């Protein structure tokens, strides 16, 4: 009796766990559209969900600049077309967050000037989707989030479910670049704070934004050059002062580079 029960449990377990529906869609003659990585990164399977979130700040830009553009890569499935194929994106609200407002924080996706850019050109399978951010005064107080999703239209059905969205968080404040994650905090940069970020910008005269940090993190020698400069500058800043007077962040914590 026991053997029968165990066998049943075992078989049930196998039948429940061995089959799982693939996230990837099979090509079935239907053109689909979805976000994805930079085409140059496609051979690298770990890059499939890269760039889902981007951060952007106007704080480094001169005061007379009122727009900035963030790009996301979008890809099609299915056959090539010999005509231009427009695609549609829409904003979706993020719970418990300051959601960006169309026309105030970003140029609305149905703005004819913008919508005209949302096109897969004839004979291609990829384009970069421009999101035009607007420098509203409210961005000086806090960061806003803009989550966007692709929409079905006459040209494209939806692609793979987990590749339909992208998110951009932006402000006119010092913002933690998304690449300044926990791993790089532990390895190189320490805990994020606006005071530390501003210190880094002031000492090095570099932006320390997503683009700059991504670039130097790929080059150990360059990274060490900038980190060495920061460490030396912080030591100089604190030299001769009591620990209580050492440079601290907006939370009162000592600023350190590991």
């Amino acid at each position: 009796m026991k053997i029968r029960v165990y066998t049943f449990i075992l078989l049930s377990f196998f039948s429940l766990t061995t089959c799982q529906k693939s996230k990837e869609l099979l090509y079935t003659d239907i053109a689909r559209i979805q976000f994805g990585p930079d085409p140059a990164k496609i051979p690298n399977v770990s890059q499939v969900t890269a760039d889902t979130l981007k951060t952007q700040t106007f704080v480094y830009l001169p005061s007379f600049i009122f727009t900035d553009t963030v790009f996301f890569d979008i890809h099609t499935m299915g056959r090539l077309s010999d005509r231009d194929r427009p695609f549609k994106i829409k904003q979706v609200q993020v719970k418990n967050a300051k959601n960006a407002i169309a026309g105030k924080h970003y140029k609305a996706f149905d703005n004819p000037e913008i919508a005209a850019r949302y096109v897969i050109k004839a004979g291609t399978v990829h384009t970069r989707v421009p999101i035009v951010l607007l420098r509203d005064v409210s961005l000086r107080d806090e960061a806003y989030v803009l989550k966007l999703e692709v929409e079905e239209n006459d040209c494209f059905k939806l692609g793979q479910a987990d590749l339909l969205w992208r998110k951009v968080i932006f402000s006119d404040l010092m913002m933690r670049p998304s690449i300044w994650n926990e791993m790089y905090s532990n390895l190189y940069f320490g805990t994020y704070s606006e005071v530390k970020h501003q210190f880094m910008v002031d000492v090095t005269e570099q932006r320390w934004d997503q683009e700059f940090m991504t670039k130097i993190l790929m080059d150990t020698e360059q990274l060490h050059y900038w980190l060495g400069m920061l460490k030396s500058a912080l030591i100089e800043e604190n030299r001769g002062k009591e620990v209580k007077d050492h440079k601290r962040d907006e939370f009162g914590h000592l600023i350190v580079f590991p």
Partner: protein
Amino acid sequence: MKALEILIVFALSILFYSCNKEMGRDRFEELESITLTGLQAHYSVVSGIDSLIIDPVPSSNKEAEFEYLWGIYDIRNEDPYAAMDTIGKSKNLVYPVNKVAKNWYLSLQIKNKKTGYSEYFKSTIDVATAYTRGWYVIKEENDRTDMDFFTTPNSVIADKRVENVYSFVNGEKLKGKPVMMRFLNDFKAPNDKGEYSPTRSICLVTNEDVGIMTLSGLELIKDFKTLFHGEPSKRNMQMIGNNFTNYYLINDGQLHSMIGQGPGTGTFGGRKLKDTQDTPYFLSPFHLMYTNSAFFFDETSSSFFSADVRNMNLIPVTDDADVTLSSTNNNKRMLYMGIRTTGYLTGYAIFEDKDDLSKRSIAQIIPSVSQFKIYHKTLDSGQKLYKGDNFALIYQEEEVMYFSLGKEVWSRNLSNNKEKLQFTVPANEEITFIRYRKFSGSGPEADYSYNYVMVGTNDGGQYKVRMFTKSGGDLSASPAFILEGKGIAKDALFVGPTINNLTYPFTF
């Protein structure tokens, strides 16, 4: 029992479906084999001058009509998608070689058109240029540095001198006086696609500048201005070296590093800090390195430190239990340090006491981060080594150090401390360097093997580098040959196609 029956049925049904139907794919014919004669395993050619002329003779155990595909590709290409260049589709290959000087693979695919069967054959090609085999001498003329080249067409014995090849190729001499010269097997330089790849290079270091150039054509890859992320404010170059995995550079006492194996742009990072307080330090140029070890001596604190390319600080070392001199704060100034052996990394150093300059000592160094060993002996002022200069250690072989004393070259047996006069240079010459170098070639490189103690001298702005063989630590009575030219020589170095990262010890 019933359950057991169910299990058996279940297992049998799996077994039943797991077997494919036999489709009768057995073959009882003899397998085809294509054999080839007339293709050597190895070719050596000079780019721009030689052609590969090969007339292979294939045969098959089947009725055959062959077609041919010749290709060439980079033996060390790090790009997994790198394509092979097709260089011929006929039986006979006549290929004027015009490739960058390095090792390449020659590939030949032979296909039997009647059976569709193919076999591949491969040879290595050492592509050289006029500059990829011969002796180089780094020298000073009027506070500027240049390099002479000596051809070696038949053996390691120098033939013709080509003067000032650095300035001939790059337009001007290097600023400053010569410090050192090194061969670098894998310095990152942009290739013809603009991608950085390991490049066989020659590195000249002067106290004011650096010239790292391709061995292939001696074209400059990096100078002091382009060698750093953030050019240091003061030019006081002391050394560049690598320990196989990483590169290290000391400028004005400050250590910089760069990854050697892996992606990179041949550009050094910022200076390393000594500690979390950025305590000032000033490294001696002398160093001990091998594979992934690197040790340096801070003249300010009289302390040894290790270094690692991923660590932004110098790494303190700790003494072993039975040392006779501490590796930290030992109040010494370093006059010389070099590598003795690398199977087990050891070296020797000559120290001078900071408080009493009349106190000099020699020490055996066995470096380690956690168990640093220094076995230290005070030198008696009557010993020749006490007033010696231009020190040179024998690497791996005899336990001997050579040094100059005025116009004399002396040896010191490091086991029994016996000193012996080996050679006296003519009265009108002064010794400018002593260096030991060795290369063991095999096959086509056998004639380029050498094992020399090199003694450089200056006679009124003319240099001589005497190449002495040695036996049991004693120099031969007269040199095997002499390199001569204009200027004051500081070092000499032989390069050839099979000289690699590990041929010469990374030391002074």
